[in-house]
């Protein structure tokens, strides 16, 4: 019995590698260039459109509590909300936040408030714009239907982790004439967003959205550090497949270590 748990050696190495790359790239001063993500670019456009129409912007954080395995996606979502708060405060547009789980509520409220402060318009923050619903999936969906139909937001921005309610938001968003920009970190429910929303962010684009919007050098470079891991994954898949073809299972065995 060694220091490491059985079967976790490679995973720990990978984990450490992500951390080391993150720390290494954090120190770099020059920003890399990123390819465009259409959905992210359209966010500011959607806010401007809402401003012109004099209608609010709606956003949410999904139904998963902060204390759940969706925490990273929720934090990515809150990043986007911070940006929305700044932009809407600058333009004087109302931002409605529909919050499901109660442990996200204090965090989302603070991020909203600080976004308004950062934009130099602290009075733009109104406690009443943060609507708590409950993390029960369908009551949450029903309440968002209500907001969509009665307050007619012109932009619905759902970038995070969503479940079957994804399709509901896309379809009703269309009915109320809003632009819906959505992103999901789960494959299955992403397909609902793809068929019903105007712009969709898929998978990792959700985690990257915050960095794209922030224009912060260290955060953009953090994305580059993840790209290196992706290259490693590609190389491993390729080499492994070739090795298996030649009858050697050495790589599958190494990965199981």
């Amino acid at each position: 019995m060694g220091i490491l748990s059985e079967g976790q050696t490679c995973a720990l190495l990978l984990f450490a590698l992500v951390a080391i790359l993150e720390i290494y790239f954090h120190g770099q001063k020059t920003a890399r260039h990123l390819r465009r993500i259409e959905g992210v670019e359209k966010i500011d456009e959607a806010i401007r459109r809402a401003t012109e129409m004099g209608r609010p912007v709606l956003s949410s954080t999904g139904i998963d509590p902060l204390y759940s395995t969706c925490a990273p996606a929720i934090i990515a979502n809150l990043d986007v909300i911070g940006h929305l708060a700044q932009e809407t405060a600058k333009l004087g547009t109302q931002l409605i936040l529909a919050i499901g789980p109660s442990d996200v509520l204090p965090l989302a409220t603070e991020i909203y408030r600080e976004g308004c402060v950062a934009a130099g318009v602290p009075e733009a923050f109104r406690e009443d714009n943060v609507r708590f619903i409950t993390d029960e999936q369908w009551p949450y969906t029903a309440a968002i239907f209500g907001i969509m139909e009665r307050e007619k937001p012109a932009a619905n921005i759902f970038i995070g982790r969503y479940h079957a309610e994804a399709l509901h938001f896309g379809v009703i968003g269309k009915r109320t004439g809003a632009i819906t920009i959505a992103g999901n970190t789960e494959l299955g429910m992403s397909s609902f967003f793809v068929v019903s929303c105007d712009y969709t962010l898929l998978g990792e684009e959700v985690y990257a959205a915050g960095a794209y919007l922030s224009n912060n050098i260290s955060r953009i470079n953090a994305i580059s550090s993840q790209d290196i891991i992706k290259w490693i994954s590609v190389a491993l898949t390729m080499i492994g497949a070739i090795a298996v073809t030649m009858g050697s299972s050495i790589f599958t065995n190494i990965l199981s270590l």
Partner: protein
Amino acid sequence: MITTDIGIWIGAILTIFVFSFLYKDNKFFRFAEYTVVGAAMGHVLIMNVNAIIQIGWAQLITGNYIYLIAFLGGLLLYSRFWKKYAWLMRYGIAIIIGTSTSLAVRAAPKAEILEQIKGSMVPLLVPGDAFGTINNIIIVVFTIATILYFIFTMELRPSPKIADKIGRVGRIGLYCALGYYLGNTVMTRFTFLIDRLQYLLLSWLGL
């Protein structure tokens, strides 16, 4: 025969109220919406209070005083009502975030990265099975192309022309997966809808 069970009557009426939203937003739907939100709120309150009692309080009264941290951290969340001390809530939030984030990501390298890569390490040539060979090549190509599609940094991409082509293949692989999932879920979705219709037509109206 139409049922005389009051529970089914309430349920059926609420069901119709929700369906009416398909036509347009109306007072009936709003009634159903507020009903379910109010009910859910009460339900969630009870569940959370029970969790506090069963997980936290039960330990505390057996002398497990480490759980005082839980109660302290929980109460600190309420500091946000006093602007000057609002930062105190970060202590409670920090425990939640630190624990949940690390719980969420700690198993991912193994289960979601390495195991999946391993899954795509399939022989590119299956002797005597042309169909199997093609299938395996499709799997490997789609896996690689889709990962490459997600590379964001320009400096880390192959030349633009190649990157575009690979990106295209990657997107096709991705959309195949989306299409497969979509086609597969329709049945479950219909099952739910049919269940509701059976509830209305059979349980309630007794047709």
